[in-house]
């Protein structure tokens, strides 16, 4: 920032106050955070089962496409239509997640490779489907705008936050967090998934069907990202653009990392991201700091936030190891296994 001839202090002030200055901006922060909550959960959930879901972007696109397609085709009353749209998004994303999961379980294809490929399949599917079936009135590269009956935006909420982008997605997101936290913590399914994630050999030896759980975990992760797509394309925005792989899919990884994969951590992480992204515009407007610098700064902040978590964890692990090593001292070898 110094290099571009601006005051860094002022820049940071605007960056953070821009995300929380008034009701409208708080609304926008929440709206920006909504898809991130979903993708963050999608990454974190798969992580719990020891899988790296890098395909949240593609799962979002498919969820968004599904929801948009339904919203543009059917003219049902709003509550029913929205429910159907969300369900379609859920299944579309779920399918997109399940495929890499299935490939991993069946043929041991690494889920990172498979889900990156699935990202591009989704990307080009949208590239084809939107202009072909849902072309907008002016631009070739956008779908038609959704009617308000098919949008997650509702007037009372928009008015409450004085015209911000906030929409029903945030409530669905919070409900989802509660459900996911419950599944992970209280159900046998969560117990199985975590066991597979921590130690799949022990899980298998205990009779858990590891491959089945891998597919299921990826399907659930995909469904979460699919919902995120819906919340983004039919909530935050009102149409779909082609040629864009949504960055929320990747930011979701950073969110999950910040959150150490805990569902409520994902919530705070997403809000933090929301503040930064909303404040970015404000900083641009109020100072002469170029927007590229703003993005760099955001990336740097995330980088340090994430590494500080890593450093801390590494530290903990080192400490633990030392104690462990001591405890198992003569065991080294005979105990075999550390």
């Amino acid at each position, binding site marked *: 920032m110094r290099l571009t001839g601006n005051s860094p202090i002022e820049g940071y002030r605007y960056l953070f106050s821009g995300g929380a200055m008034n009701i409208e901006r708080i609304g926008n922060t929440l709206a920006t955070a909504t898809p991130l909550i979903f993708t963050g959960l999608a990454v974190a959930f798969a992580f719990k089962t020891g899988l790296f879901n890098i395909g949240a972007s593609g799962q979002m696109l498919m969820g968004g496409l599904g929801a948009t397609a339904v919203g543009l085709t059917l003219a049902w009353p709003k509550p029913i239509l929205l429910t159907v749209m969300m369900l379609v998004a859920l299944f579309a994303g779920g399918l997109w997640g399940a495929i890499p999961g299935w490939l991993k379980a069946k043929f041991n294809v690494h889920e990172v490779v498979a889900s990156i490929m699935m990202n591009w399949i989704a990307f080009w599917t949208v590239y084809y489907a939107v202009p072909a079936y849902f072309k907008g009135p002016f631009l070739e590269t956008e779908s038609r705008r959704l009617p308000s009956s098919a949008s997650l935006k509702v007037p009372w909420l928009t008015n409450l936050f004085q015209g911000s982008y906030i929409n029903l997605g945030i409530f669905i997101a919070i409900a989802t967090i509660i459900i996911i936290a419950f599944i992970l913590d209280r159900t046998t399914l969560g*117990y199985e998934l975590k066991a597979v994630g921590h130690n799949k050999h022990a*899980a298998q030896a*205990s*009779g858990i*069907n590891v491959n089945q759980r891998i597919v299921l975990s990826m399907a659930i992760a995909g469904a979460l990202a699919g919902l995120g797509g819906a919340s983004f394309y039919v909530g935050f925005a009102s149409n779909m653009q082609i040629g864009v792989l949504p960055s929320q899919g990747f930011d979701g990884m950073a969110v999950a990392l910040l959150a150490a994969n805990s569902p409520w951590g994902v919530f705070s992480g997403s809000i933090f991201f929301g503040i930064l992204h909303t404040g970015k515009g404000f900083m641009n407007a109020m100072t002469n700091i170029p927007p590229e610098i703003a993005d760099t700064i955001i990336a740097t902040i995330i980088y340090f936030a994430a590494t500080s978590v890593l450093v801390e964890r590494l530290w903990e692990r080192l400490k633990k190891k030392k104690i462990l090593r001591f405890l198992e001292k003569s065991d080294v070898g*005979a105990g075999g296994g550390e």
Partner: protein
Amino acid sequence: MDYVVELLDIRKEFPSVVACDNITFQLKRGEIHALLGENGAGKSTLTNILFGLYQPDSGSIRLRGREVSIPNPNVANHLGIGMVHQHFKLVHNFTVTENIILGSETTNGLFIDLRSAAARITELSNKYGLNVNPHAKISDVSVGMQQRVEILKMLYRNAEILIFDEPTAVLTPQEIQELMKIMKNLIAEGKSIILITHKLKEIKAVADRCTVIRRGKLIGTVDVASTSQETLAEMMVGRKITFTIDKQEQVCGGSTLVLEGLSVRNNNGVLGVKNLSLEVHAGEIVGLAGIDGNGQVELVESIIGLRKVESGKIFLKGHDITTLPIRDRLNSGVSHIPEDRHKHGLVLEYTVGENLILKIYNQEPFSRRGLLQREAIAEHSNRVIQEFDVRAGQGAATSARSMSGGNQQKTIVAREIDRNPDLLIAVQPTRGLDVGAIEYIHRRLLGQRNKGKAVLMVSLELDEIMNLSDRIAVINNGELIGVVDANDTTENEVGLMMAGIKRGAMA
């Protein structure tokens, strides 16, 4: 007195524990000095200080009367200290010579001078009676031979003080005899040896003096010839230990496990178990003896359901379970104490309580309609922890990772025996445990037998097999060499069978 190594008043603390509490250890020239202690007593810390892996907090190290500091293993090597690690550090696709010179290669311009190195290795090998072929590939030679390569590695570097860390853990009885002969040769040539072990028999057989440590404290240094095994054990554990296991005769029932012509492939795709037939009856312990890697793993995994059976059948209580999924086998009465407790036994990130329900979490009352019932789980784990005397700092909420190896093993034993299985498969159930824990686990295995349940125990420790088993099955290279009655055989006979020599063909 002529001491080569003196560790004087060595103190080393780790966060929350004192590993060495002012220990003094003196090694005479030309002696074999055993270092005896349970796991976690501080043996390894002490030798690691001598080898330069740890720095002492206080105390001094004297070498041939001169005070030295040993900041890292390279310095230790320079000073003539060498260590044979329990897990050999060899490159498998290198030859013996290449492995030995690794790190101190003599060169001939740009090229490694393998020829003169090999000549020197042959010379050393002959001098100490090691009988090592310098051109053999490590992957082709036996474990005992690999150990001799490790010994040669130290001799090649002119080590005068040799540290052996649990050297017999991986050897057959015959190989152990060989090793002891080699050790005697070494001291005859003026070397000095520190032998780390918790096997009393070996100390009696080969050591001159023995230093016992317990929980970081020096208990004493004794002359081995004038001290009985019982005294040594008592010094090590701090209480009297019963060696003999009280085993009552008992008539065994019908066959619980029947293996019929079982063949199983190993990880390399070749048959690891070949046409093996075996029966385990209710009320008996069958010990499966064999050298590591002769098909035991494949056999057990196929019974549990972790590995596909190539041909043959497995019957449990008369039912064919050859193709059943793992969970169905578990539910029909099979329990398994795995060889690697960290890999197959525990989810280390889970608490003790969560680990105790690893095989029953999906059954009532621990879960209802897919929801875990925390109260029932807590009740269950508290009862099991109590009953099996698992020492866990925070009870059921203790993380499995933070426990000692012995208590981790007890957790697994508790989980498996508490299910009251008709067939208990215990693989190396006491590996790496101290005497107290071993005694306990042996009692529990016998308890299962006395209750009229079948136990199949796989172990590399011949003592364990001889003491516990009613019948001993010996496996070599995937084939069943024979089954003998435990009362009607000797350690020597089983040892020979482990090497693949059939009974009767021995004379």
